[in-house]
């Protein structure tokens, strides 16, 4: 049977992708970051997930505001890096796993999550930057990818509770997939950052730390934090943190925090990374 072997949370900062692509990730600014993400790269090498389910948001790249979509899943055999306004990233095309996409989609709908099924999907930095963080610059990504996207662009975004429950539903789908596959689930985006307005540049490290502690230990409380609190404390784009709740929902209620790294600044963000594992081998 398929099983979830770990949950990873990571910010998905476009600059990180650009700097990795241009082989510019060195010097005083990047040194702590390179060092801080290495344990996650080691974790991937050691645990070798066959598939990564990547929970991310599109930034007006594949989608427009013509239709505003709360939740969707990529169904195809491959996902090209999107042109976000400055050409496609020169990273490998993601290979999908259509049989698992189909199983998750069907399972979610029977679970009353009427998710949008995207048969064509270009994936933007929200999905590809986490892969670069975890795998650096391989010829091909070492895992297959199932994209799950969350509509984060427009308020009100899906509630935290709904995101958490989506994670639970994804977990039920994975647990009932008959192939022997090791699966990691990634929650991406955040944590505190604000890209817009006169308050741009906002960082709130204390809040992020408290929020992460809650995510790990008391998710049933953290999932109910209001959007206004997140917008206020973690910045207007800090609300991307709700995607970490999808990841958290797919894990057991009790988890082991294997690794955590936080660093300010990476571009405009309090970069945050966490690795969670279930305590019990099932």
């Amino acid at each position, binding site marked *: 049977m398929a099983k979830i072997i770990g949950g990873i949370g990571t910010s998905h900062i*476009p*600059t990180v992708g650009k700097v990795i692509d241009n082989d510019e990730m060195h010097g005083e600014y990047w040194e702590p970051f390179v060092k801080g993400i290495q344990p996650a790269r080691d974790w991937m090498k050691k645990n070798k997930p066959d598939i990564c389910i990547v929970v991310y948001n599109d*930034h*007006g*790249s594949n989608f*427009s*505001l*013509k239709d*505003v979509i709360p939740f969707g899943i990529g169904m195809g055999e491959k996902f090209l890096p*999107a*042109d*976000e*306004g*400055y050409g496609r990233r020169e990273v490998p095309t993601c290979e999908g796993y259509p049989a698992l996409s189909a199983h998750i989609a069907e399972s979610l709908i029977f679970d009353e999550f009427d998710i949008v099924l995207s048969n064509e999907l270009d994936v933007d930095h929200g999905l590809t930057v986490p892969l670069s963080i975890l795998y650096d610059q391989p010829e091909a990504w070492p895992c297959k990818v199932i994209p799950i996207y969350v509509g984060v*662009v*427009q*308020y*009100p975004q899906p509630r935290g509770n709904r995101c958490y429950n989506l994670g639970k539903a994804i977990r039920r789908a994975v647990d009932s997939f008959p192939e022997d596959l090791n699966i990691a689930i990634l929650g991406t985006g955040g944590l*505190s950052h*604000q*890209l*817009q*307005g*006169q*308050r*741009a*540049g*906002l*960082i*709130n*490290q*204390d*809040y992020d730390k408290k929020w992460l502690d809650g995510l790990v230990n008391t998710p049933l409380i953290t999932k109910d934090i209001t*959007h*206004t609190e997140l*917008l*206020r*404390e973690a910045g*207007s*784009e800090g609300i991307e943190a709700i995607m970490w709740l999808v990841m958290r929902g797919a894990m057991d209620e009790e988890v082991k925090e294997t690794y955590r790294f936080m660093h*300010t*600044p990476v*571009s*405009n963000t*309090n970069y945050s990374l966490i690795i969670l594992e279930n305590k019990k081998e099932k």
Partner: protein
Amino acid sequence: MRDYNDIPGTYVFDISMSQKGYGLNKFCETLNREEGRNQFLNNQDEYLTKFNMTEEQIEAIKERDINRMLELGGNIYYVFKIAAVLGHSMQAVGAMMSDEGLTEKEFQQMMINGGRSIEGNRSKKENKDG
């Protein structure tokens, strides 16, 4: 008043803003394609008339006034594409939007120093009442 409108220096992109900014954001979305970028760079005046934008929105784009675009329903992820096409980084954009008139370098330094503090930036009401 909605509670999130109490957050200083922040334009929450809610449904009514999205309706208001639909044309503006639709224009920005075309910058995802080479053809749209070329039209914008080489034929701006005519190109901007194609998206059912208001005069004010067109003016804000021509003046590269990002806060004004946000005020008129622009969404930062979309509006940033204009800046990217013109060769500006996110930090340059952050500097342009700041009240203090920061330069890109000063904005970067603010980030290195830990970013803009939440203290004094949490609530308009709090700031007013002290």
